[in-house]
């Protein structure tokens, strides 16, 4: 029997606003900040304190909602989600329940099957919890509470159960992370836990429209955990069904070490959250003016940019993928390509230089594109020097390396300083060719006897004599001409 997996994702993304969702505490890097240094009486939930909505968080959430083509509710309502846990200082989490900020959107994903949209069910705002660390001391277990994360704005983005393969899940997660980074609301830094996933997975006989019994896999903090756990669950459920069994509805966690899903404690499952409207916050009103302000400030989104750049620069899908992965990369490439175009340089050359030489250097040095020591204009100038034959390719790479080494510099000046200007002067090159042929009569004889491959060796000798500056095309021509002349 053929089975089809059905997968939906819930993504929790922190919004990297200046301050927390309901108080003035700063949003800090949780992996480096000292515990409990970004805490006030509001996010510690001391008695009598009250939450106030951070408008910047709403602004960020609206960016995401609009980018996901959602319908934004003009009035949405915060609710209390009641549950008791030591990392939740109020004893309830302020979230949105019945009336979320936005609904009915979609996200474009690309897989080997092509492009398609995954429907978004809802996007809502809530607050993060604190963090517990369990330590052993004097034979006893203690739980330490860090409230730095308590009250950090979280956006929950829930998809419809629209995905049917691990590849689609990966594509969705990647596209969403990319979108959040484009919008400037989340760093996408998975190691810092700023994006977390929950997957619900079921399988059904292929062609069936009914949904199978689904399980939820919670607390997935990396792409790898997401993909592996979903793949594992699909396999497990198929095996259960194939053996004639029934899939049990349950909440699972991912055991990283044993590479398998494991049931979570039933105690945590049995929650009745007793949601009710948060009386401390009036309904959140978003008027047309606010929405238009956010819409007008939206950057070009990854999907649109991918399409446009493919067209405008004649990119292959793989190139476009690479060049639009990050907004800063796309910006850099476009600026360089346009500057190069003005100097008559073909875009293809810029693509190769950016994805090859530049990315290679950045990788080696561990730099982000916005930290590159060469500006887009500089790169365009460098590629133009190569294109015009003033630099050969190897010399161009040397110039780039030098600019990285110096932490900056203008390509022509660097070229001059290194004495790398390409020699295309035929007279000069003929002199070098003559000298090389003079010095290697045996090799010349072999060539004249029909051993064509010696030509490349002789070419190398000429280039060496020219210290790499000679225009290779002119060298080849001169070399062949000189050799043929010797045939008599």
């Amino acid at each position, binding site marked *: 029997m053929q089975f089809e997996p059905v997968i939906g994702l819930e993504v929790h993304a922190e919004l990297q606003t200046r301050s927390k969702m309901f108080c003035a505490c700063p949003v800090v890097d949780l992996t480096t900040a000292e515990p409990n240094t970004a805490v006030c009486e509001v996010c510690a939930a001391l*008695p009598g304190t*009250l*939450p106030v909505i951070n408008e910047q968080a709403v602004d960020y959430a609206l960016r995401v909602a609009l980018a996901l083509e959602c319908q934004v509710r003009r009035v949405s309502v915060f609710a209390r989600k009641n549950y008791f846990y*030591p990392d939740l200082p109020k004893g309830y989490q302020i979230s949105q329940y019945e009336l979320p900020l936005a609904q009915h959107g979609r996200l474009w994903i690309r897989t080997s099957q092509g492009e398609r949209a995954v429907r978004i069910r809802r996007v809502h705002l809530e607050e993060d919890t604190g963090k517990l660390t369990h330590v052993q001391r004097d034979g006893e277990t203690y739980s330490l509470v860090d409230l730095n994360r308590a009250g950090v704005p979280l956006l929950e983005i829930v998809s419809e159960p629209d995905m049917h393969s691990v590849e689609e899940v990966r594509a969705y997660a990647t596209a969403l992370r990319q979108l959040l980074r484009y919008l400037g609301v989340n760093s996408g830094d998975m190691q810092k836990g700023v994006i977390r996933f929950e997957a619900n997975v079921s399988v059904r006989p292929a062609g069936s429209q009914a949904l199978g019994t689904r399980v939820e896999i919670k607390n997935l903090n990396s792409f790898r955990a997401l993909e592996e756990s979903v793949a594992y669950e699909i396999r497990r459920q198929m095996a259960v069904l194939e053996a004639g069994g029934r899939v049990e509805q349950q909440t699972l966690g991912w055991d990283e070490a044993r590479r398998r899903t494991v049931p979570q404690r039933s105690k945590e499952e049995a929650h009745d959250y007793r949601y009710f409207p948060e009386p*401390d916050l009036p309904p959140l009103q978003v008027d047309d003016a606010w929405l238009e302000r956010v819409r007008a400030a939206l950057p070009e989104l990854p999907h649109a940019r991918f399409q446009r750049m493919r067209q405008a620069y004649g990119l292959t899908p793989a190139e476009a993928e690479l060049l639009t992965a990050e907004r800063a990369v796309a910006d850099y490439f476009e600026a360089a390509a346009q500057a190069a175009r003005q100097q008559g340089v073909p875009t293809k050359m810029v693509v190769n230089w950016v994805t090859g030489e530049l990315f290679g250097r950045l990788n080696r040095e561990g730099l982000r594109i916005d930290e590159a020591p060469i500006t887009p204009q500089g790169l365009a100038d460098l590629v133009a020097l190569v294109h015009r034959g003033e630099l050969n390719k190897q010399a161009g790479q040397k110039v780039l390396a030098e600019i990285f080494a110096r932490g900056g510099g203008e390509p022509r000046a660097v070229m001059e300083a290194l004495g790398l200007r390409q020699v295309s002067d035929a007279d000069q090159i003929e002199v070098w060719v003559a000298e090389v042929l003079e010095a290697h009569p045996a090799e010349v004889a072999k060539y004249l006897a029909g051993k064509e491959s010696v030509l490349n060796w002789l070419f190398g000798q000429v280039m060496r004599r020219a210290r790499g500056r000679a225009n290779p095309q002119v060298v080849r021509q001169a070399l062949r001409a000189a050799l043929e002349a010797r045939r008599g």
Partner: protein
Amino acid sequence: MTWTPFASVAETLRALESGAVSSEEVTRAYLERIANLEGRVHAFLSVYPDEALAAARAADARRMAARRHPDETLPPLLGLPIAVKDVLAVRGMTLTCGSRILEGFVPPYTATAVQRLLDAGVIIVGKTNTDEFAMGSSTENSAYGPTHNPWDLSRVPGGSSGGSAAAVAARMVPVALGTDTGGSVRQPASYTGVSGLKPTYGRVSRYGLVAYGSSLDTVGVLAPAVADLVPFFTLMAGHDPRDATSMDLPVPAVDLTDAVEAVQGLRVGLPKEYFLAEGMQPEVVQAVQAAVRHLETLGAQVVEVSLPHTEYALPVYYIIAPSEASANLARYDGIRYGPRVGAARMWDVFYRTRGRLFGPEVKRRIMLGTYALSAGYYDAYYAQAQKVRTLLKRDFERAFEQVDLLAAPVAPSTAFKLGEKTEDPLAMYLEDVFTLPANLAGVPGLAFPVGFDEQGLPIGMQLMGPHFREDLLFRVAHAYQQTTDWHTRVPPVAR
């Protein structure tokens, strides 16, 4: 004229201004009264004599300095001692909410309403007794012992702001802050013969008021005369960026001059449902009717009106307030505040601490609220209660199309005996039957004394007005007090 602790707020301020008395003398006089009466009344949970006197001396120094610089303006209430109900946070003073679970907790911040008064120069002499987390109508639910009604020490002062009401009635302080979620300012004011304001919901910031029923909680004030309340209300009122439910509306100055003349032509509505309740004490009905006739003699037009959903106020309140409370009180886990009941397992620490340190009424309401919000019951209870609440609000809106304000009894009877209703929660809840609707509708209410029953116990009347019309209530009540003297009576124990 020599100053006495029976002086009104205005008189005391004038005496301080003229130098007839110093803030230190005023503060010392009230502290002495507290020392003399507290053993019998038990109005306070904490008193800060040294801090209060130091603040008084600082106020006096400031006044002295200002005499040399006549163009310097002094804060309006400089050097005036007050008391604060112990559900409002004051930095550096314990905040118990009348509960063992918060014993010893000292907040590092001050409630906005209190801070505005401190900025205006008041001196806080202490924190007053309250039913635990303001849940109660007699102050008997305080974990630190009940407050006694100064008019009859064997009786309750009402609640939950019973400590504040008793302190004011016994003139242990000239003014005290209270809070009103279902009548907790007005009902004790009525039981102790003082005046008490519950402002419009959203008028005074709730920041720093320990939440009980968040959609109902208000910060109010109690004093012998309505005129004493006015400066406190106007200073506390107004938008607070730290309370998203506080309204960004201007607070009009309350002008009490010619208040008597202004009653002329006002339409006063008598909601008939407030006079028909079962088991009402006849003297209460008679006293309120007499007070209304008095307003008529001042030129008011009295009309009977109907608030048809009044009978549902009690059940609606006892779903909504406990539901909100069940969430609001979840944070008291025995880890961060107060004493801890130890256990081997973390969860047992929570369970045992909450089980032992919350009182029975608090636990009853947490359970009621948890039940009303539970899956499968939410629609039948919480959601339904919200719908009926809307109908109750509409009752008031309709009434205020016909009349300018409403006059009604505060409570069905006068102060009852200590212990009389502790075994019967429903009988206790019925004490609030006339005060709950104003909280559910969010409208302002002002209670003040309009007579005494045969046993010499005070009877209160309340005026209720449209949202944000506290000024109207003040003017009419002041007109009444300008032409009567019930509010000047002092309980024998305090004379």
